[in-house]
């Protein structure tokens, strides 16, 4: 039981890296305080080590978010090879998935609790220092406790949010109108309610979010059930056994399309639809200028994630060390992968700067600073012909080597 759960927990070296970052940031905070902080007047003293103190809560939340995505990916829903393998085993959706859970489980409270505790201690300390330095003599115990409690909950909330977000993206990726249209409709409804009354809006919004989560959850199980059923009795013989041969797909008189082709063909329309959906939902929130820095960091993180997804498929001979060794620092055909992340960061930051200088209103600039880079990240791919002939991500096709089942 524990081993089953532990298989879904990020690896030991990653946990160690997280601990090292937190400890180093704390040590840096102490060192800075000892070196300069205590010589500076109290109201400003906190500013000396505050940047180091916020590292730990930030890293904890980031780790929780990464764990949320990792958890969903633990059941590689888009991995045809995994499905095929499961189709040869006695597994059914009633059983636990092998190699750990793919959804949040109660045991997650332990690692998330540890992350929450680390974040709470740091945020509590920051709040205490603030109360000591800026409002000396005034008791602010409640403020400290409130801040610590919020920080304690933050990793859990981030974990659930990223898991649900990833799950929803997967469901949307399957292009299920029964999920997409209601969620879009609910967003529009939320906008309308906003004009009626704030209380009604908040209540309805909460109910709708819960309904949305439930719908995604149900839909995921339906997908899993279908996946399994199709491997039992489907007797359709697909041409070329589902092998994703670009030549076959381009020339096939039957118009057979593999999952890879279907995925690429609908990519642009899907990303547009996702963009509209996000626009509807994100414009509901009251964006403020304090959030600009957070959004700027988010844009950078999106770009890094996009880069990591693609760069992960690169061979080691394209690493920085290898390039230095071969004296070929730039490999143009491969280095195209750096362009989309670069454009993502540029567009995100440009929109935020426009919002900061009030050229564009914050309620538009902030959502767009999320949506536009996201769409660039999704859409910025070569067309199928170029992709199939030149891309280094050949293993994507290899996932469908065996017989596919529609």
């Amino acid at each position, binding site marked *: 039981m524990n*081993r089953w759960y532990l298989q879904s927990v990020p*690896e030991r070296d990653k946990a160690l890296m997280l601990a090292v970052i937190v400890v180093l940031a704390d040590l840096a905070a102490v060192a800075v305080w000892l070196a300069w902080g205590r010589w500076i007047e109290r109201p400003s003293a906190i500013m000396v080590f505050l940047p180091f103190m916020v590292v730990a809560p930030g890293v904890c939340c980031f780790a929780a978010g990464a764990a949320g995505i990792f958890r969903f990916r633990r059941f*590689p829903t888009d991995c045809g*090879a995994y499905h095929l393998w499961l189709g*040869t085993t006695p597994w059914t959706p009633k059983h636990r998935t092998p190699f750990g859970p793919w959804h949040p489980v109660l045991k997650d409270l332990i690692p998330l609790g540890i992350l929450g505790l680390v974040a709470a201690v740091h945020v509590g300390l920051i709040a205490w220092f603030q109360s000591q330095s800026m409002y000396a003599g005034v008791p602010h115990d409640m403020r400290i406790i409130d801040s610590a409690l919020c920080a304690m909950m933050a990793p859990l909330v981030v974990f659930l949010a990223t898991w649900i977000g990833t799950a929803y993206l997967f469901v949307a990726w399957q292009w299920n109108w029964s999920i997409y249209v209601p969620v879009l409709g609910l967003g529009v409804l939320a906008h309308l309610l906003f004009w009626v009354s704030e209380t009604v809006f908040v209540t309805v919004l909460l109910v709708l979010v819960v309904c949305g989560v439930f719908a995604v959850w149900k839909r995921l199980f339906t997908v899993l059930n279908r996946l399994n059923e199709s491997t*039992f009795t489907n007797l359709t*013989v697909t041409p070329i*056994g589902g092998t994703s041969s670009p030549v076959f797909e381009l020339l096939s008189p039957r118009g057979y399309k593999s999952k890879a082709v279907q995925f690429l063909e609908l990519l642009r329309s899907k990303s547009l639809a996702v963009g509209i959906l996000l626009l509807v939902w994100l414009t509901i929130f009251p964006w403020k200028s304090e959030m600009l820095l957070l959004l700027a960091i988010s844009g950078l993180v999106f770009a890094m994630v996009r880069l990591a997804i693609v760069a992960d498929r690169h061979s080691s001979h394209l690493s920085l060390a290898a390039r230095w060794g071969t004296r070929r620092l730039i490999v143009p055909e491969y280095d195209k992968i750096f362009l989309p992340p670069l454009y993502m960061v540029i567009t995100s930051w440009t929109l935020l700067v426009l919002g900061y200088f009030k050229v564009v209103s914050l309620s538009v600039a902030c959502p767009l600073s999320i949506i536009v880079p996201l769409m660039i990240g999704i859409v910025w791919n070569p067309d199928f012909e170029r992709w199939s002939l030149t891309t280094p991500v050949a293993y994507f096709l290899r996932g469908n080597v065996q017989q596919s089942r529609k």
Partner: protein
Amino acid sequence: MIQVSGVYHHYGLKPILRDISFTLNAGQTLAIIGPNGMGKTTLLNVIAGVACPAEGVVTINGLNRRASVEQELAIRQQTVFLPAEPWFPPTLTGRNLVLGVGELWGVPTRRLFDHTERLLHVFQLNKIADSNISGYSTGQRKKIGLCSALVTEASVLLLDEPFSGGLDPAGLTAIKQILKHLTERQDRTVILTSPVPELVEEVADEVLILDDGKLLQHDTVENVIRNADAKSLDEALRKLIFPETEAELQEYFVHEVTS
């Protein structure tokens, strides 16, 4: 017992399997041999339920493959299929993979842990058992795949090219001995494919030779060798499938010399 009756399969317009029928009793090892591209893997895929035959029926221990959910689940419980290039979760350790697969087949925990240890030891994977599979070499991947198939304790083992894929001599010996032990002492049934007859001669009780998707011969190893008037299975296969190879080689060298 495995029964394959009148199986046809094709990819697009290209026929791969044509009227394949045979029966294999429990406790026997059947080696499907033949040149590359003659349908060995496709036949094994059909038996494993990964590919659906265009025509024909596969019966395993009295249950029809892909006939109903209940029958299919029962077959899957009794069968393990290891493709030539199996899928591995890259972020999982070798030990966790083997244990996870064993759990999936419902092997009792104590026996599962013990068996896993023994398998990792015999395939010399102890030292890297707790490393991620993504860091394994091709041969080590092959070995961990074999371990995961063997740990299931399934009564039918379907192994696609178990002796290829970079297995070292120790690994080859280990898998051969284990397969012999399983069929002789535990009454398990094994179907494996190989393009190289020498490798299967030692372990196979029966041989099924495919040529261009058709069943050329299905008999015991001894009978195949005797019928072909050969000294080994390799020679028998050469005589059966490549009778012209010797002449073609001679012709090739004549051209080489004259040019």
